[in-house]
């Protein structure tokens, strides 16, 4: 049994002191190194090191989960950030040092599992070992005397049956003790499932790691902002942002469409402690999967839409004021809803409108949208929104003219206006003030540049689309981890012996057990067997 465990496992025999190590050759060193790597001590050390190494990533924003936080951090602490970035602290969980710790741990783990699995398979086929000569020193030792010398065979057979029924694997022994008396015994062992559970647990951990690693490679995730009434098609160009895995290829994208029919938000109205807090977000969609036809569905925060092997999650929402711009010639140069990005809980939002088709000059507008503008008697002259719902929708815009830089074909951020080469014609730095529009208003631009109309307000949703073919395997392995853990920890592995010893006046039955691993219930289990067995024999246990 000892060889199934690393040599420094608590149940393995203690190393003999004072033995001179023979000089090691290359292979010897290799074997020595491997033994060290797969020892319990190393596993323990690496586990604790891994816990420790995970800490920095919780103290400093991570590129993977909080990219804006990283940018902010670098701006605030440029000197420290340089060192941290060099040490990959902004990418702790994919850093060289973090990865090497867990990879070493898993090498150690695999090196530990393989020999143990082999040994366990062997022990599953090995019958229980010989009954020890002296049971008296073992756990739960109990003896009972019978004054009949006959039929110890039958008694031991019935003990064997009893033990088998309780799930023990049994083996009979018929021996002669040193003093010449006959000793008939049954040796029983149970709880092989404990070791099985432990091995399943550790192997499933490897399974989790491997599937998580692979999952990132074959999957993809992307994001798309969709205004009510618009649709998204699942092709590369349909996304605003898209992160393919390492082994991604275009043909895993099923070209389905998701049309957002309606977005409804519900806000708390009664409880004044939570006035205006969101209670529910629901997106009504119509989906069209090739070969399956149209269907309607909903997406909620905790209820993603499962569609054609991918999932669509509702991760954000906001307002998209519909803005119509007429140029100096009176032509409609722009008329569409523009998603404004929310900045606070009351959905004060910022947005940008680019009108490259305006004549005589291109127009750029940027400004704020307030779903419920706080009245100036209450909040003063600084505008703000006091409720996320549409109570008094207000739009403020500054207007620029010049070359928007869209013609060069370079990618530009739709949510930012680079004003370096533009001239402000309306706003803080211009002769005429910024525009302020209520729903339905039309305002003339200065210098005969045209007019801006606040036509309508729509809502938009921000959907994340994920595809991870291995996700289900991660779940399956996780469940195996849990199942293995439960069996590995709570199924007792124990040996129990029942021995019939001939005495001058009859027969003495002895009962004892041996724990293999944690087994708080061993003594009462032996006691229970002793009681049942002696009852079967008609022996009374007085106590």
């Amino acid at each position: 049994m000892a060889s199934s465990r690393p040599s420094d496992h608590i149940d393995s025999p203690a190393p003999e002191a004072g033995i001179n190590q023979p000089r090691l050759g290359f292979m010897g060193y290799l074997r020595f190194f491997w033994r060290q790597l797969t020892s319990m001590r190393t596993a323990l050390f690496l586990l604790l090191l891994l816990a420790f190494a995970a800490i920095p990533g919780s103290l400093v924003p991570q590129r993977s989960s909080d990219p804006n936080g990283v940018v902010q951090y670098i701006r605030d602490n440029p000197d420290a950030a340089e060192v941290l970035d060099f040490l990959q602290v902004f990418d702790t969980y994919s850093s060289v040092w973090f990865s090497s710790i867990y990879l070493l741990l898993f090498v150690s783990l695999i090196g530990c599992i393989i020999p143990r699995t082999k040994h366990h398979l062997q022990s599953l086929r090995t019958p229980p070992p010989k009954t020890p000569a002296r049971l008296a020193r073992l756990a739960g030792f109990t003896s009972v005397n019978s004054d009949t010398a006959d039929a110890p065979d039958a008694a031991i057979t019935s003990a064997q049956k009893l033990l088998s029924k309780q799930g023990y694997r049994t083996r009979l022994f018929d021996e002669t003790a040193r003093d010449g008396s006959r000793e008939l015994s049954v040796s029983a062992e149970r709880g092989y499932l404990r070791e099985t559970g432990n091995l399943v647990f550790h192997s499933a951990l490897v399974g989790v790691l491997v599937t998580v690693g692979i999952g990132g490679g074959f999957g993809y995730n992307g994001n798309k902002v969709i205004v009510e009434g618009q649709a998204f098609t699942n092709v590369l160009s349909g996304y605003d942002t898209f992160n393919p895995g390492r082994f991604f290829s275009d043909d895993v994208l099923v070209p389905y469409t998701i049309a957002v029919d309606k977005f409804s938000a519900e806000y708390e109205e009664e409880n004044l402690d939570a006035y205006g807090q969101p209670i529910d977000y629901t997106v009504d969609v119509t989906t069209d999967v090739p070969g399956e036809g149209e269907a309607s569905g909903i997406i909620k925060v905790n209820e993603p839409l499962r569609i054609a092997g991918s999932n669509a999650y509702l991760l954000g929402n906001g307002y998209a004021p519909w803005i119509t711009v007429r140029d100096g010639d009176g032509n409609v140069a722009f008329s569409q809803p523009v998603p404004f990005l929310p900045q606070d809980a009351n959905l004060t939002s910022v947005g940008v409108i680019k009108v490259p088709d305006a004549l005589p000059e291109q127009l750029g507008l940027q400004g704020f949208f307030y779903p419920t503008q706080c009245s100036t008697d209450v909040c003063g002259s600084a505008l703000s929104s006091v409720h996320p719902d549409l109570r008094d929708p207000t739009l403020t815009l500054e207007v620029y003219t010049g070359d928007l830089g869209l013609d060069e074909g370079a990618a530009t951020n739709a949510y930012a206006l680079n004003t370096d080469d533009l001239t402000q014609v309306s706003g803080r730095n211009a002769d005429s003030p910024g525009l302020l529009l209520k729903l339905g208003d039309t305002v003339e631009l200065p210098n005969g540049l045209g007019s801006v109309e606040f036509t309508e307000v729509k809502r938009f949703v921000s959907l994340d689309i994920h595809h991870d073919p291995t996700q289900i395997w991660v779940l399956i392995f996780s469940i195996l981890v849990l199942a293995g853990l439960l069996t590995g920890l709570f199924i007792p592995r124990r040996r129990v012996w029942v021995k019939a010893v001939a005495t001058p006046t009859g027969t003495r039955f002895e009962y004892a057990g041996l724990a293999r691993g944690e087994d708080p219930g061993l003594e009462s289990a032996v006691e229970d067997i002793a009681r049942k067995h002696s009852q079967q024999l008609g022996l009374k246990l007085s106590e």
Partner: protein
Amino acid sequence: MTETLVTFSLVAIWSAMAMYALAFIVFTFDLARRSAPAEAPASAALAAAGRGSAASRRAEASASESSRSSGSTAVLDREAGDGATVVPGARRSSKWARLAMALTVLAWLLHTGGTVLRGLAADRVPWANMFEFSLTATAIIVGVFLLVQFWQDLKFLGAYVTGFVALFLGIATVNFYVDVVPLPPALQSAWLVIHVFVASLGTGFFALGAGLSIVQLFQSSERTNRSRLLSTMPDATTLENMAYRLVVIGFVFWTFTLIAGAIWAEAAWGRYWGWDTKEVWTFIIWTIFAGYIHARATRGWRGSRSAWLAIIGFSAVLFNFTIVNLFFKGLHSYSGM
């Protein structure tokens, strides 16, 4: 209606706090009496009585051995103790300890009542923000403590448990209190019920395991000159074994919490794991306790070293709940603060 319930709930919680404080005082008093010399003869007599009964049992056994020819009756001769329920070094609890236990039960009923009322007031489970989670988690810690008494007499941990809970309830009620508000959409999920509740269960077992480990450290550091107080408590090895059994149960709950959290995160945030700060700390705690379990199985690491790991693990749980919730930025910003 909501307001009445909230008020009742708060009254119950404040009363529970007072009751816990009282229980803490009586538990401490009991501990002090254990170390007082006057108590020594009594406990020695008790110990002697215990030994006496074992001895008489053996005597009976050997008596019957000599009379075994007299018929087909036989006698069980038990050499080992009475099984797992007897703690070496434990003694019958004093009337002070029993009074303190009664106070604790009373406090716990008030505490649980207050927590349930809070849930009724909010019309949902009472663990959706930091204040409510504090109520529930501490109620579960005490619940586990009381439950474990059926298995083993751990009254000597009473001062630790009631002191800790009274303090934590105080901090929560004064500093973390928030009014009843509806659940934000991200928390509207059956996983809120399961994930958070099981996490608190795990916390309860870890708390007791850490308490036992602390006493264990005292026991083993005083090996040469055991104080009277410590001689009324189980020895270091027994404490370690008990701590292990509790921590292992906590570990299973924690593993479940981790998996359930990942399933929930997948539904709510679109990914099952993203190294969000709270996820990081849940992982760190899990890894520390996996280390603890390994330490128990590694030669040279049993005893004080593994006890330290259990204590560090529980400290990480506390850190995760307080510092990480309040000061670290992340998706889990549901403290309501």
